[in-house]
């Protein structure tokens, strides 16, 4: 099976929902009309190509994303995301997004709010930080001696942090803010 991503939940909610909808109980008979199925799916494929194609500008961004391929940097993986891993506080609708990235001995804590972004590099150390928002742009920040950094611009859409600290480069996994 596929071990590149979290595939352990193959039979999770979605499978259950299919059953809930009663699809499995329906009696159409299993006739030998697979050919018809294929032609109907071909029609749908044609319809999708006409009515809901990949937007051209998005395809272009994906092509340009090749520039983000960077084997010199160490990849800091997302190990905590409050959106998924935290228990929500009742009534708190605008709590900040807390993120933790980790690689080897470097940890990066990030907090994203509507006002901007703040975080800390651990162990504490000065670092140059670039806030990436795509293959084309990046804004620069500096982490102080305690490893702390702030930006008063909240990331809109996908972002990643590229840190230069102690002679090495660390990039956080791309994430949608």
């Amino acid at each position, binding site marked *: 099976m596929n071990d590149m991503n979290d595939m352990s939940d193959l039979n999770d909610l979605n499978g259950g929902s*299919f059953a809930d*909808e009663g699809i499995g109980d329906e009696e159409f008979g299993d006739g030998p009309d697979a050919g018809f199925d294929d032609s109907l799916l071909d029609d749908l494929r044609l319809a999708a190509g006409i009515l809901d*194609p990949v937007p051209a500008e998005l395809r272009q961004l994906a092509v340009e994303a*090749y520039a983000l*391929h960077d084997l010199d940097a160490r990849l800091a993986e997302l190990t905590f995301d409050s*959106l998924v891993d935290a228990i929500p506080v009742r009534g708190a609708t605008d709590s900040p997004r807390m993120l933790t990235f980790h690689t080897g001995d470097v940890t990066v804590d990030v907090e994203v709010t509507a006002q901007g972004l703040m975080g800390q590099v651990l162990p504490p150390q000065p670092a140059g930080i670039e806030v990436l928002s795509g*293959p084309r742009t990046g804004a620069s920040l500096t982490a102080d001696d305690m490893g702390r950094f702030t930006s008063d611009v909240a990331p809109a859409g996908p972002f990643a942090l590229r840190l230069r600290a102690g002679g090495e480069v660390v990039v956080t996994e791309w994430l949608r803010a």
Partner: protein
Amino acid sequence: MTAGTVHSTAYDDLPYTRGGTVDRAEVGALVQSAVDGDAAAWKALVEGLSPLVWSVVRAHRLSDADAHEVYQTVWFRFAQHLGRIREPEKAGSWLASTARHECLKVLKSLRRLMPTDDPQVLDRISEDRTPEQSFLDSEEAAAETERIRRVWQEFEELGDRCRQLLRVLMASPPPSYQEVSGALGIAVGSIGPLRQRCLRRLRARLDARGAL
């Protein structure tokens, strides 16, 4: 892109596909070439797998803005993980399941807010015309256009789960069941039977409307 070709041949000129389906060994080779610095290989991966990623995002009914951001996030992360993917020939499954996870995160963040708007895809006009769109420009295509619109309309009115499954299955080139499994979090073995029933359900709707 080739203009004026019908759906069954529209993608044949892409090196990525063989006989209309995704060639797994080819994907693995393209990923390896891209790792080694071949930008054309990366572009071929984007051409071949973009429709799958877009289908997964669309299947989750995100708003246009969210759909665009998830699509970008998935491709940026794929570029970032390129040299670290353990089974390059399964890059399609990697992309599909990464897209699913990002979609579920978006839905989770929206849960306490309001439901997303249904994408009004029938009103959307793309600037670059796909091969299918170019086909519809031809003179003999007016009736075909109407038929295809009806099929799409009935598809959009299917129950959530059938609509979700079919939206992924209709990606071009057609996804493998492994990729569909990654895209929707359902077991490979259950996809065939569900596919059959969902298509029959759609056919029943079309028959009822006398649309075919």
